[in-house]
Structures are given as C-alpha cells and as structure tokens.
C-alpha cells in the first residue's frame, strides 16, 4: 500500500506530461509520412524494379528541418494543404515540380484576421524593392521567409538580439550562400564583412541591428519595412541612428517605442532595455545637471578673474 502511494506522484507527472503533449500536438499537423524522407539527410525506399532497398541523399533544397517546422507559424498545416495531394504517392510524379506554389498573399491577402498586419502594404512595398525589380519578378516571399520554419520574433516581443539574429539570418541565407544566391544570379555574393568594412564595431552592429534597418525605406504603416533599397541608397551616415532622432526608433524599436520613454529620463529609453546607442540615448536630468555645474564653474572662475583684474589695476 505504501509503495503504491509512493508511486502516485510519478504516475501523476506521467499523466500530466501525456496530457500536455496531447495539447501541444493538437496545434501541430501530422506530417510524419513526408518527413520520413524530407526530414532526413538520406532517405530509403523499396525499389520495385531491383527488389532492393535504395538509400539516396536528399536534395538539400528539399530538406525540411522538422524541429523548426514544428515550432514555425505554419506548424498546423499538413504538407498537402499547400502542396499537391499527388505528393502522397511515391515516387512523386516528375510533373509535380512544375506545380505553382502558393504565395503569401494567397492566404494572408484580403483577410480581416490579418488586416492589422497590412499584408497588402507589405506586398506593395516589396514590389518597390530592389529584390523584386532586379529579378524580373522572379523574387518571391519564400526566398526570405522560410515557409517551413518561419517564426515570429519582433511581433512576439522576443529579445532584440534574437529579433536581429532571425532577421539577419534571412538575408544571409542568400547573401552568404552562393548556392541559394545562384537561384537568382550568376554572380557570387559579395563578402558581407568586406563590403561593410567602413562600419566600426562591425560585429556589434551585426548583432544589434538588422540589415533591413539600414537597407530599407522605413514605413510607418507596416511593422517591418519591405522596400529593400539599392545598396547606394542604404543608410551609411552614422548620425541617422546615433542621434536623438534615431531612425531605429521608427524601425527596430518602433513597436516598443510606444512604451513610456520618458519615465527613466532617458531619450529613446526603450533601447536601454537591451542596448545603448551613443548619441541616441541621453539622460535629460544628467544633461541639465552637467550644463548647470559647468556653467557655475565658468561663472565662478569669471567672477574670480574679473575681481583679480580689477584689483591688479587698482594696484
């Protein structure tokens, strides 16, 4: 009897864990059949012609990171919700590679659920971007936003370092990857560190600021600007960020800037939660105190000097 009572907490934990897994699993579609191959580096199948089991490397462009998929914004969708039902048959028909893919706007456009994110505004800005214009309209959302692993960072209020890492990861997935870059260009991508060699504390900037903060035209009606500018038009004047009217307040920190910024006495105080930008972060009280102290010292010394000069003249 005592032993049974001792086992009770263990049973309770196991039950709660199973229930929890069950609740979580409700949100995640069962794509195990597809991931048997597409979630692996190598896949195996029974070759009916040779009656042998073949083991082949999966095309890396067709590999799906199942962990990322299960935590992504699209985790509730079955693969065949977006891809043809015919993919359920193996081997897949060769014609399926000609299948037209869904675009973001096919689901997100004209839907009141997403109205506040202004996907139409995002699309319009994207169509003005250098990506779209320079690629003969071959550039699409999926080239940056991994449909099989996209996670929200900024909207989820994640730490700025994570927001920056996720955002810059999207840019670097092409601009630091000659294979993916090659999908649109015959040239190799430029060395990111080299073309940004003018930027002091480069590593710090790359960890704390998104590429799009300098390489887009900021728009107030969308959360993240999508009008990627030609490189010649990117921000390269330090004071556009390092000043009291920092452009970062309209981009990276825009959604948080609404929080009280005056309470701490600092200008652009929202940055101080996770960083510090010289020129942009100033403390009004300390400014006044320092100007006052400096003024008093100068005034005192001037009075002393004038009195000395008067007395010297008298003598």
């Amino acid at each position, binding site marked *: 009897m005592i032993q049974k009572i001792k086992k009770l907490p263990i049973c309770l934990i196991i039950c709660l864990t199973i229930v929890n897994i069950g609740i979580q699993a409700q949100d995640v579609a069962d794509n195990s059949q597809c991931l048997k191959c597409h979630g692996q580096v190598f896949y195996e199948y029974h070759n009916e012609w040779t009656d042998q089991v073949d083991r082949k490397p999966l095309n890396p462009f067709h590999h799906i990171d199942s962990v990322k998929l299960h935590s992504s914004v699209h985790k509730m969708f079955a693969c065949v919700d977006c891809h043809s039902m015919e993919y359920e048959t193996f081997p897949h028909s060769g014609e399926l590679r000609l299948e037209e893919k869904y675009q973001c706007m096919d689901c997100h456009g004209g839907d009141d659920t997403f109205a506040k994110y202004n996907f139409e505004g995002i699309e319009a800005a994207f169509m003005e971007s250098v990506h779209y214009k320079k690629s003969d309209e071959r550039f699409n959302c999926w080239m940056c936003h991994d449909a099989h692993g996209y996670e929200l960072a900024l909207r989820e209020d994640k730490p700025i370092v994570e927001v920056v890492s996720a955002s810059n990861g999207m840019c670097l997935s092409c601009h630091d990857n000659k294979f993916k870059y090659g999908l649109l260009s015959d040239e190799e991508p430029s060395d990111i560190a080299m073309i940004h060699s*003018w930027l*002091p*504390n480069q*590593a*710090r900037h790359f*960890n704390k600021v998104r590429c799009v903060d300098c390489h887009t035209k900021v728009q107030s009606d969308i959360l993240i600007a999508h009008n990627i500018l030609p490189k010649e038009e990117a921000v390269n*004047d*330090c*004071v*556009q960020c*390092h*000043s*009291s*009217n920092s452009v970062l307040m309209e981009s990276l920190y825009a959604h948080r800037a609404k929080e009280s910024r005056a309470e701490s006495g600092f200008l652009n105080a929202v940055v*101080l*939660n*996770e*960083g*510090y930008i*010289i*020129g942009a*972060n*100033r*403390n009004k009280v*300390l400014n006044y105190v*320092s100007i006052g*102290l*400096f003024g008093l*010292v*100068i005034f005192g*010394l001037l009075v*002393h*000097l004038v*009195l*000395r000069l008067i*007395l010297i003249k008298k*003598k």
Partner: protein
Amino acid sequence: MSAKLYLYPIWVRVWHVLNAVFFLVLLVSGLSMQYSNPDVPLLPFNVAVTSHNVAGLGLFIIYLCFLILFVFTSNRKHYKIEFKGLFGRLMTQMRYYIFGVFKGEKPPFPALEEAKFNPLQQVTYVAVLFVLYPILIITGLPLMFPEFIIDDFFGIGGTLLTALLHATAGFLASLFLVIHLYFATMGARFFSNYKSIVNGYHELH
C-alpha cells in the same frame, strides 16, 4: 626679474603636452558623439569615433609611461600626500584663493623643489591621475571593444553602465581642465605658469 626653479623635467613637459592634446581631442570628439546632431555636427560622427579611439589609446599609452616614470623617478614625491594636518592646509590654500589673492597676499605654500604643488593642487592631481584617469581608461577600453561588456549587470545594461561611468568621469575631467587652465594663470604673472610648462622653469612669486 623673479627667481626661477627648474621643476618640470623634459619628460614631464612632453607627457604634459601630449596629455593636453589627447585630452582636448577626447573632449571635443566625446562631446560630438554624445550630442551628435545630423544638422549641426561638431565633428562628423565617423571622424569623432576614430579620433576618440586614437586619442584614447594615445592617452592610455602615455599614462602607462607616466606611471613607469612615476615609479622610477623622484617626481613621485610631489604626489605623496601628508594626511596629518591636510584639512587645515587645504583650508589655508582655499582661503588664499577666495580672499588672500585679492588682498595681494603671498601664496601660503609657494612651489619648492621638494614640493612643487600646493595642498589643493596635490590632492586634485592625485584624484585626477590615480582615480579619474583609471576610471576613464577602465571604462573607455571596453567601449572600444563593446563585445567584451556583459549585457546585464544586476538589471542594468552593461554598456549603458560603462558609458554612464565613462561620460561622468569625462565630465569631471573636463571640469578639472577648465579649473586647471584658470588656476594656471595665478602664477607670478598671468602667463608665467604657461611658460614654465614649456621651458621647465617655475617663476617664483
């Protein structure tokens, strides 16, 4: 012609002039960065950053040289504070600056070969060179390499804390500079102390 004492050897004068140049560059570039304004830039931001870094490193190197020469020369005797009766001596010196100087009194602690600084100078120079400078250097070097600064220090951003300390120490050092420049006019004649730091000879009152 008043009597002269050779108080400032060549290395002190060279250190002093380099110190002054680096300090002025740091002050102007530091103010320019802290109050950067795209419409009225004191210095272009990238120029301010580069010159602040170069002058900061320069100041750090000559400070190390100063410390080495401080240890190995007799110059250190001028910075040795005699705490016994210090408060009284400070009051006497302050009274001279506030009242005595207007009455034409002689300085209570004239420069001597054994003690070139008056008590107020001595305490101030020790505070600047051995408290303020180390704070400026200890906070300035990490700001040059901010990746080494911890992100969070008991809930306060590490970079913010370091920058605040650095700016505060810089502000106090700039106050010292202004006061130092003014009090240097209180030698035997208005510019005699300025000449002293060039030729090494201190003109007595």
